[in-house]
């Protein structure tokens, strides 16, 4: 499903943030992306959600070469990817419901066709009561769950999450992790960038991708429960 071959990335004339990154992830994989701060985790996620093009190398996703994919085809690919940002990136002028349903709205779907599904999702992540609230009044954990709900509302084939438990208490972190595992069991490929060793330890079925000095190594899943 995802194949990186000797991918390199640099910003402008700066040093290479990612060097010779090569890995393959099959459909339905659950992967933790870890490494020290500044190692390039967020940059790797950017490459995965088409936020950047690689400086060199080959990225194959969904059977397409991302390096040569025309820009006008980005939206179609992005709709197959859900992204949870570390800083949530919710739109402050939209309600929780509108934020969460955004991917469906921009896809041209009518609100009547998705209202019930979105409400069900909001209830599932514990935000049913906050559907009409704006992000400014949501707590960090609520924003995090809204961001996760937005990422999964379109039933993406690939879910990318950047430090999804960085702003929540351990209890909520566990709940969110269960949510990701559940989604993974339903067939979604999931890549979670995190520093949280406990989170990784609590998920033995996941593989761990470590970035160090711009290079990537993958350890296999320790066990599958």
């Amino acid at each position, binding site marked *: 499903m995802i194949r990186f071959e000797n991918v390199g990335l640099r910003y402008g004339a700066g040093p290479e943030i990612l060097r010779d990154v090569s890995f393959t992830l099959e459909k339905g994989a659950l992967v933790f992306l870890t490494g020290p701060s500044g190692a390039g985790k967020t940059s790797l996620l950017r490459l995965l959600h088409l936020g*950047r*093009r690689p400086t060199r190398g080959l990225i194959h996703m969904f059977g397409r070469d991302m390096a040569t994919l025309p820009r006008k085809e980005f*939206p179609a690919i992005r709709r197959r990817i859900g992204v949870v940002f570390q800083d949530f990136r919710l*739109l402050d002028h939209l*309600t929780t419901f509108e934020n969460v349903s*955004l991917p469906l709205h*921009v896809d041209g779907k009518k609100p009547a066709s998705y209202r019930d599904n979105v409400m069900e999702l909001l209830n599932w992540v514990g935000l049913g009561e906050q559907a009409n609230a704006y992000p400014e*009044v949501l707590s960090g954990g609520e924003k995090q769950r809204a961001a996760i709900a937005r990422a999964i509302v379109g039933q993406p084939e690939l879910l990318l999450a950047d430090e999804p438990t960085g702003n929540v208490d351990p209890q909520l972190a566990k709940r969110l992790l269960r949510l990701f595992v559940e989604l993974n069991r339903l067939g979604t490929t999931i890549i979670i960038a995190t520093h949280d060793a406990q989170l990784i330890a609590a998920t033995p079925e996941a593989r761990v991708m470590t970035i160090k000095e711009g290079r990537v190594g993958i350890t296999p899943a320790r066990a599958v429960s």
Partner: protein
Amino acid sequence: MKGEKASGWGSVHPVTPSGRNILPRADAPLRTFMVAMTVMCYLAALAAGGLFMTWGAIAQWTAGVSAQATARIMPMQEDEKAVTARVQAAARLLAAQKGVRGVHVLSREENKALLRPWLGRSGLLDNLPLPRLVAVQLDPVHPADADRLDALLRQRIKGARLDAHGRWVMELSQMASTVGWLGLAILVVIALAAILLVAQAARAALEANRETIEILHLVGARDPFIARQVVRRFLRAGFIAALAGVSGAWVTFALLALLASSEGMGGSARDLLFGSVSVVFRHYAAWLFIILIATLISLVSARTAAMRILHDIFRQG
């Protein structure tokens, strides 16, 4: 619930998706655009109105002088009786011609009155050998051929000739044409300025919403979808600005018409300056055209600019 605001496209209750714009309002660029667009539409409407006034006045003047001609009989070494005889003969000759509705022999007093504004009330006018004039009223529908009348007059009456104001009419017509081109040039310049203004304002609006647009891109929004959100704002703002600008111009012309009808202004000056103000109000199509063009410029220019900016600025990689 704390934090609730007006419901949008996807409010949970009531279930009525509205036409709410997905982009937050970028008030500053939009307000600047509206003010500038209103002023430009006002200027465009003033230019168009001025053009109609000028054309109206020229048409009035041309119609007036086209139906008139003046026969001049130059004084010679003769007594008053002989001059009067030549004048009367010229008047009879002209009156008998087909296409001439009537003639009026100007008395010496009337002649002097015509020259008095330039030469004053001194005795100079009594000593000058003034030409005698015969005002000829031509048939407005089937006017006599002025050249033929002139030739006939020269042939039959010594020292007489006919001035049909042809040169004057031609100059007026040239002036009308020049004014027309000038007005058109002003309108084109205003339209070009409006296009640039919309493009700049659209860029500013997109820049102000840069983060929102990035997020929209990330959730799979296509450029035309985002551009549509921008265009909706500019379409509405452009229409309101055009309406305000044209209305402002109407108020200006209404004030001019009021001034024209006031007692304070002399009749001739009033007729000369404002005689055709009323003409302005008859050109409904032109006003609608200005509003339509301004709205179209807002639509097309905003969409073109938005698509280009989205492609250029928000290009990934």
